[in-house]
């Protein structure tokens, strides 16, 4: 049952924008519960899919994780949707069944995993949804869009942490049919909507040659409802800025030129993406959520010294093509140099932190 949320202090005054002065900080507990994505000192792409079953008492305990940033992230999403309508949320017209599937999955998961915060009451198709963190208490008819103030997917994902991309199965591939992406890393939903699996992965280096995409697609097409899978991915970003879309690149790209080996600890953030994929039961679509966590290098050093050593080694040995693709060519050396002060070279455990004997944030 729940342990984390009862002790979680949900912050309400955080911001993820320069206008809001980046009022964002992780607590020590918030750092140590992260799905830290470096199981080894060397990093290379892999499919790294595993069954999405509860693991540990951190971010992998729930089907869809929420943490101390839940309230402020929902406020940020609302702000982004108002600032740039038609850019961050889009759904092709035939995706309505998948939208209801997704609403059901998110609400059922939240209500089951965080009963203190959420309650879903069903009486046939008459549903009541209570979200105590955001002060929402709504009743609607499942399957009838007229009973909600907006699309079911927009309604549900405005109350959820992370991005959600819905893929429909068509001609033996997966095609982007809808997305709520106010936190996307250097891509455009508007541009990618309607693209197939190989098309939207087009710009990623090495994947095609390594055969990873073929295997990943075959695996995903075999997914069944009720048997989700997950993977983790990561990047670096400058400042705790969630919205780094292609559209707003002129606003955030200059930040990359502000990092040096003195300020890298405060400026550079590890951006962890937890991706728990689910097959949806009615529409047969697959939802690809990207739950994003931001943590500064200084916060890792302070609260998770083992992870700081590990990320130092992984970054120092990272393939240059990946450095370019992930967009931190300009400050990669500064981040490595800053981290080197905190790495004594001691051997570290291998494996993800939620695996038996995996790398823990601190201690031996």
């Amino acid at each position, binding site marked *: 049952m729940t342990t984390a949320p009862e002790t979680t202090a949900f912050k309400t005054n955080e911001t993820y924008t320069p206008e809001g002065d980046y009022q964002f900080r992780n607590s020590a507990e918030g750092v140590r519960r992260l799905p830290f994505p470096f199981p080894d000192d060397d990093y290379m792409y892999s499919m790294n899919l595993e069954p999405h079953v509860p693991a540990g008492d951190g971010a992998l305990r729930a089907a869809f994780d929420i943490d101390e940033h839940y309230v402020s992230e929902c406020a940020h999403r609302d702000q982004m949707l108002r600032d740039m309508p038609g850019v961050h949320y889009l759904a092709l017209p035939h995706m309505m069944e998948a939208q209801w599937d997704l609403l059901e999955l998110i609400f059922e998961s939240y209500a089951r995993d965080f009963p203190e915060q959420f309650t879903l009451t069903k009486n046939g198709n008459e549903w009541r949804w209570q979200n105590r963190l955001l002060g929402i208490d709504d009743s609607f008819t499942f399957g009838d869009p007229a009973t909600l103030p907006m699309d079911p997917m927009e309604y549900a994902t405005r109350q959820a942490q992370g991005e959600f991309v819905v893929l429909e199965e068509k*001609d033996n591939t997966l095609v982007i049919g809808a997305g709520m992406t106010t936190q996307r890393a250097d891509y455009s939903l508007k541009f990618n909507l309607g*693209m197939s699996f190989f*098309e939207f992965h*087009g*710009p990623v280096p090495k994947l095609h040659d390594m055969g990873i995409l073929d295997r990943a697609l075959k695996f995903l097409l075999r997914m069944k409802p009720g048997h989700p899978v997950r993977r983790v991915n990561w990047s670096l970003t400058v400042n705790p800025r969630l919205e780094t879309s*292609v559209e707003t690149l002129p606003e955030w790209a200059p930040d*990359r030129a502000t990092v040096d080996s003195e300020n890298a600890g405060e400026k550079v953030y590890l951006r962890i993406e937890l991706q728990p994929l689910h097959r949806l039961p009615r529409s047969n679509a697959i939802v690809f959520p990207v739950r994003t966590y931001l943590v500064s290098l200084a916060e890792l050093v302070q609260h998770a010294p083992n992870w700081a050593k590990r990320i130092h080694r992984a970054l120092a040995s990272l393939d240059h093509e990946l450095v370019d693709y992930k967009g931190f060519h300009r400050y990669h050396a500064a981040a490595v140099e800053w981290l080197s002060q905190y790495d004594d070279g001691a051997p570290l455990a291998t494996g993800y932190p939620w695996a038996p004997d995996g790398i823990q944030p601190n201690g031996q």
Partner: protein
Amino acid sequence: MLITGIKSRPVYDELTPMASGLNHLAAAQGSGGKPLVRLLQAMTPDQLAATDVLYSTESFTGQNYLAELQQFKVRNLAVFTTNADAVRGLDASLADAKMGTRLYLSGSEGFIGTSMQVATSYGMNRDEVLREQAGSSARRVWCAHCGHYSENVTHRVFTCPGCELNLIVRDHYSGRLAAFQGVKADGEVPGEMPDNEELDT
């Protein structure tokens, strides 16, 4: 035919008569007239009599195949002076199209892409359409920042007429927008421009 490492770029076909078609609709632009002539040559008299042709004489490279196209006994040949008009003509033709219509497109990538947007809006399946790229490899580019579409972009770096930012053309193509993606070229350090180059040469 364009052969590049761009994974999201469409894979083009070669125009040949689709035997399953009861009616044939062929739209071409500029250099795309050449594959169209080849297509019509390969058709039987019955197929020609069930074929409507739309041809735009707008051409980036100055190629015009109208005289050759006029030699064929097709049901109808409609001529347009701009590609945009030809695409609108295609829209009108598809609005009246009957079951069993097969579509053939040839010309620049931008023309084929915008024609495909129309075909998709009528629910045409990929196996009912053949596309052959011809002529210049100029690209149609969508500006990620202001949404402007630029036709006939030939260089990696150019100035967006919509927002006047310097854009770099990414090797990433959206079929829905029928365009490549343009993003600010000197995003990290204003004035620090990447190398320019001719596209697809």
